[in-house]
Every structure is written in structure tokens, then in C-alpha cells.
């Protein structure tokens, strides 16, 4: 594959190699600094201990339960937030009066740092998964809402007029014009939305719960177990990367009609 002519970059395997080198370099540096006591292992852990702890957690299976909880919360927050965002986004975009009246309030609520809601949700919904889901929903909802609103508003008037001339009823316009346009905006914000669903889950767990990755990190912190904290962060990072890859695959599937950066295939492929 060739990308539109920009500055020449080395080929993909070389880049991958460099990326791995950075990772190894980071761990080496960490190892050397802690082994020579320039950084205290008590405060900074040691990479070997962190890797070992992570490995043991996976091997013994304790971590799976917490991963599962966080994943469930993330998925629920994402699903509920997305459906609500789509519904309200459409409603507001198609009802100008509603959108004008509610505009300042939507902006105000969106400007509120959502973390402050966590204790309230814990109070209302208890320490189980639903308080975390609620926190995630408040984050996801607004991203999806604004994107759907934009997507409906940005439909080209000519495309719309064309569909109407071809005989589209309001129902057809929704299904064949507004929805695809809105969904393309939603999907283009999929990474952010999934990321925020997870932030909601983990922050919620961190602030008060009995399970999940956030809870594990909080627990480790409580007993000054730096290795445990770093191990938790490592698992969280892996979790994020895996989810991001999955989202990318889904996105490619669903947005195949969208112009990517101009691409051509050359002989080497």
C-alpha cells in the first residue's frame, strides 16, 4: 500500500521494530535506575517484579474476575450511552425549538467534570456495577449526542433533495440518509466513546467498589504496594490496547464507504 505522497517514512516492519525498541528501552532504563537504587524500588517498583506479579495474577486467574467486571461496566456504559445519545441527538437535530431551549443546559452539564458525580451515583445506586455504569454513561452520552446532532445537521442539502426527488418518504430519509450520516459521525468517535466508557468504569471503581481493575489499583495503593499499582496499570493498558484494536476492526468494517487517505496498491503490495 502506498499512502498519499508525504514525507517518506521507513517501512512498517522497521517502524514496528523501533516501537518495540522504545518499549524495551523504557523497561531497561527503569530496571537500571531501580537496580542501582537511583530510584527507590519501594516507590517505583521494579519492572521484573511488576511483570512477575502480572504474570502470576493471570496464571492464578484472580485478575480475570476483575477484568470481567470492568469489561461489563464498560460495555454497559457504552451501549446505554450510545443508544441514549443517538435518540436524543436525533430528537434535538430534528426539533430546533428543543435544541435552542436546551442548548445552554446541555453545554453546562457537559462542562461539569463528571468525576464529581461519582460519589452521588455511589449514593444513589450503591457500590455495585451500576454506579460505575452511570458514570460511564454520562461521559459517553455527550460524545455520541454531539456527534449525532452534527451528523444529522451536516447532511448535504443536495443529497437530501435528491433523495426526496427520488421519492423518499420521511421514514426513508431517516433510514437511508440521516441515520447513515449520523452513524458515520458516531463511528468516527467510537474510540473516544469506548475510552470514556472505560474511564467511567475505572474511576468509579477506584472511588468505591468491591471489584474491577480500578478497585485492584486502589487496594494496592492502600497498602503502599507499588508493584501492585504498576501491575494494575499494566493490565489496564493491555486492556485498553486490546479494546482499541477491536474498535479499529469494527470501524473499518462499518465505514468502508468513507474516503480514507487516498490509497493505491503497488506491485509489492
Amino acid at each position, binding site marked *: 500500500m502506498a499512502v498519499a505522497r508525504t514525507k517518506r517514512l521507513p517501512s512498517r516492519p522497521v517502524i514496528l521494530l523501533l516501537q518495540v525498541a522504545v518499549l524495551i528501552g523504557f523497561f531497561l532504563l527503569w530496571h537500571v535506575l531501580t537496580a542501582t537504587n537511583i530510584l527507590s524500588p519501594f516507590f517505583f517498583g521494579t519492572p521484573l517484579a511488576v511483570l512477575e506479579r502480572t504474570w502470576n495474577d493471570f496464571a492464578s486467574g484472580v485478575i480475570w474476575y476483575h477484568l470481567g467486571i470492568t469489561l461489563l461496566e464498560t460495555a454497559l456504559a457504552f451501549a446505554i450511552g450510545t443508544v441514549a445519545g443517538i435518540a436524543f441527538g436525533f430528537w434535538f437535530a430534528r426539533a430546533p425549538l428543543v435544541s435552542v431551549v436546551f442548548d445552554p443546559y446541555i453545554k453546562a452539564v457537559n462542562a461539569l467534570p463528571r468525576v464529581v458525580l461519582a460519589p452521588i451515583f455511589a449514593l444513589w445506586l450503591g457500590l455495585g456495577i451500576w454506579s460505575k455504569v452511570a458514570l460511564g454513561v454520562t461521559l459517553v452520552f455527550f460524545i455520541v449526542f454531539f456527534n449525532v446532532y452534527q451528523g444529522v445537521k451536516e447532511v448535504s442539502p*443536495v443529497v437530501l433533495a435528491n433523495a426526496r*426527488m427520488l421519492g423518499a418518504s420521511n421514514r426513508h430519509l431517516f433510514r437511508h440518509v440521516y441515520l447513515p450520516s449520523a452513524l458515520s459521525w458516531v463511528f468516527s468517535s467510537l474510540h473516544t466513546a469506548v475510552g470514556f466508557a472505560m474511564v467511567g468504569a475505572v474511576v468509579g471503581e477506584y472511588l468505591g467498589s468491591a471489584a474491577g481493575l480500578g478497585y485492584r489499583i486502589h487496594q494496592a495503593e492502600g497498602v503502599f504496594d507499588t508493584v501492585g499499582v504498576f501491575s494494575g496499570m499494566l493490565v489496564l493498558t493491555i486492556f485498553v490496547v486490546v479494546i482499541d484494536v477491536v474498535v479499529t476492526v469494527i470501524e473499518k468494517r462499518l465505514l468502508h464507504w468513507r474516503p480514507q487517505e487516498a490509497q493505491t496498491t503497488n506491485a509489492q503490495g
Partner: protein
Amino acid sequence: MAEAPALRPEGTETPALRLEGVTCTFPSPDGRGSTYTAVQGVSFTVAAGEFVSIVGPTGSGKSTLLNVAAGLLEPSEGRAFAFGQLVNGINPLAGYMFQAEALMPWKSALENVAAGLEFRGVSKREAEERARPWLARVGLDRFGDRYPHQLSGGMRKRVALAQTLIVDPKIVLMDEPFSALDIQTRQMMENELLDLWSADRKSVVFITHDLEEAISMSDRVLVLSAGPGARLIGEYPVDLERPRDVAEIRMTPHFLDLHREIWGQLREEVLKGYAQTKLK
């Protein structure tokens, strides 16, 4: 959606399209209540089965007139009739090939062509089966699963042509349909359109910048003056025999006479129009 009336009295006087004293005044973009009158008191008719071209300088209001005929734009004054019926809202008898990009970018070429049938209640599968021959007719049978952004500008125009004609509109409104095509493809498409048209004699309103195209295609050429307040200032019947080959007919002496005559009038307007646009 209302279907075209099944029993259309043949041979009666009812014109396919009639515009009566159409005036379109737009609010100026600078706000403050000032307005811009694009077209003023424009009246014309298109007989059933007639091919009429409208030429005029850029910005004179050709697309505006077509929007009125399509029922997409309510004129400030005047009315439009399609086969005697007042156009009020979308004109269900008209197909419209837009000047700007109008394909749905999220649908493949085939799905775009099939869309009109789907909107009329044909199942997706059957609509696509029926769309295939139309794609072939515009020379794109191998490109059915491409999305609009993967097609060239000319290919997109051809998809749009198939998309417009597949639903068999009684009146076809075309806004500079071929201006994006290279000269060879363009003449091929022009001949193809004339073939399609002669098969079932739809009424066509064809807008173009290109006077040669207008003359070689139509039964009648209307000339629109430069705006603001553009009016129809010329009407020229084109009595060249059919069937025509658009490339060959341009060499005939009668064609050249007509061209000289119309161009004499159009040229002034184009110069005025150009001066106007620069002033704006």
C-alpha cells in the same frame, strides 16, 4: 408517494411543464433585509415529449428555475404546473439530475441507482437486479460495488443519470449533467441520452453552459439574460432532423447558422453576467 397518473390523455394540449411568471427573490447573505432577485417573471412551457434547453450566463438563475420546476423551491411569485397540476411541494412527476454531487456517499453505485425503486416499495434485492442493466447502460457495469468517492467525477455523473432515469420520471430536469465529462465521453453520453429519450419521449429540461450542446440536443433553446432579475430573452426552435448524432450535426450549415444567431444574443449576456459577478 403519488404514482404518475396511469391514464394520461395523449395528444392533448396540457404541457408537461409550465412556469407562469416565476420570480425568485432571495434574502442577501449580508442580512439587513436586503434582497437579491435572481429571476423575474419567467414563463415558459415544455410540451409533452419535448426536449428544451436553457442557456444563460453563470449566476443568471438557471438552477433556480429548475428547483422551482422540481418543487424544491417555492417561487416568491408565480406558479409551476406539471401536466396541468399545480406544483406544490416535491413534483412527483419529475426526475432531477443535480448540478452538484447528489449521490448518497454511504451507498455503492449499484445501491444509489437502486434507491429510487426502493423508495417506491420495490424490495432491495429486486431493485438491485433492475439497477444492474441501468449501470451497464451508462457504462459502469463493473463499478457497481464502488462507493462514490472511489469513482471519478464523470463516473459519478453517469451513476446520477442512471439513478434519475431508473424511476421513469415523466419530466426530466437536468442541470449541466455532462459538464464534468471529457469531450469524447460527453458526446457518447449525449448520444446515449438522445437514444434513451427517443425511445419513450420524456419531457426534458436541459440546462447547459454550452450552446453547441444545447442546439445539438434540443427541440428548442431558451436564452436567459444575465441577473439580477434575469428574464427569458430568446426562444429558438431547433428544426434539425432527428435522429441526430451530436458530433456530426455540429458540422451542418444549418447548425452553424443557428449557433451564430443564438450566440449573437447570448454573448452580450455572458459579458454582462461576468461583469455582474465581478461587481459582487
